[in-house]
């Protein structure tokens, strides 16, 4: 039925949500190894949310904006390389998919919060990781308390939390949440020519709070809050993998 149809026609026919222009544009720019830094600066500067996130990535040790030593987009890119803009480009569709999943499947509003405002995770928690490889390599890490994980699984499955019979259901739901989040950013990366493959998610109960950054890569650490739940998402990636 669709031989000859182009992507825009199909996206309209299937009712796809429009993609965020700034994130798509940024991905396309960053995907070109010879891209002009000025163009990247312009795209980020036009989007206040992207700008804020880039400066947060460029000042990983600062508790708040007053402590920022890197204050402009240009300076951030000069110091940390275009790789940190790539992490931003990846984090945007990922964060949007997570927020949309909460809206559509849990009827709940998830807001992005400053990592420093979040209540720190301690002890045993649920850790989900998904690896991607190809022209971009890295991992996405999803962490939440066991109580949050139970509430989310119950909400998505439409059950009271006490009716979840095993940790397997909780882990399966967390794995699917990771699949949904990363499926969206994979599409953006592939559309920009950065083909990559997603590996099956791994979900475990862990005490490990460390997120390793790949050599030469970038790391964005995000936090989200909804009702009594907090979620922590880290994206660690190294673009332009030539393997």
């Amino acid at each position, binding site marked *: *039925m*669709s*031989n000859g*149809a*182009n*992507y825009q026609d*199909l*996206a309209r026919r*299937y*009712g*796809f*949500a429009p993609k965020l222009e700034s994130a798509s544009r940024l991905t396309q720019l960053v995907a070109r190894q010879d891209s002009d830094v000025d163009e990247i600066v312009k795209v980020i500067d036009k989007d206040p949310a992207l700008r804020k996130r880039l400066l947060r990535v460029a000042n990983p040790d600062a508790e708040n904006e007053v402590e920022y030593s890197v204050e402009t987009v240009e300076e951030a890119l000069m110091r940390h390389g275009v790789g940190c803009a790539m992490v931003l480009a990846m984090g945007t569709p990922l964060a949007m*998919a997570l927020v*949309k*999943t909460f*809206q*559509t*499947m849990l009827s709940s509003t998830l807001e992005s919060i400053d990592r420093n405002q979040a209540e720190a995770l301690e002890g045993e928690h649920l850790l989900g990781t998904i690896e991607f490889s190809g022209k971009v390599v890295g991992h996405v890490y999803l962490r939440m308390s066991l109580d949050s994980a139970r509430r989310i*699984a119950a909400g*998505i*499955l*439409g059950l009271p939390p006490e009716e979840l019979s095993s940790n397997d*259901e909780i882990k*399966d*739901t967390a*794995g*699917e949440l990771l*699949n*949904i*989040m*990363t*499926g*969206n950013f*994979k*599409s*953006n990366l*592939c*559309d920009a020519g950065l083909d990559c493959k*997603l590996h*099956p998610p791994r979900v475990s109960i862990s005490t490990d709070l460390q997120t390793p950054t790949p050599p030469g890569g970038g790391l964005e650490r995000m936090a989200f809050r909804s009702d009594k739940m907090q979620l922590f998402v880290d994206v660690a990636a190294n673009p332009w993998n030539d393997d």
Partner: protein
Amino acid sequence: MATKILSVDDSRTIRLIVGKAFRPYDVQMCEAANGEEGLAAAAREKPDLIILDVTMPVMDGVTMLTKLKEDAALKAIPVIMLTAESGRDNVLQIAKIGVRDYLVKPFKEDQLIEKAGRIVSLQKKAAAPAAPAAPAPVAPAAA
């Protein structure tokens, strides 16, 4: 006769959500956890509609769709892709093989019902007959 729908997804969560969405309708659900199991279930059950994920272990959804369309006995079964991946190449490749619709995760149950309802007949289950009214309490006889 109930409409038969096959859900092929490696995530039990998604299979449960899909099953829950169709619960109010006269639908017989069957499930498979990967493309290989999905093909076997399609041949065995001859469903009226297949709801198919893309990324799955053993055999992915694109391979299953290709094999389904190559099989004269199965190629007419309509397929809705249900996936988190909506990248250009993926969508164009899948559309070329032949699908009736495409739904991107996360999704609302209503969206799935609407898309499925355009392809197969979805009849609401008849309401269960009301239980007979309890007899009125009898006033205790005066002593």
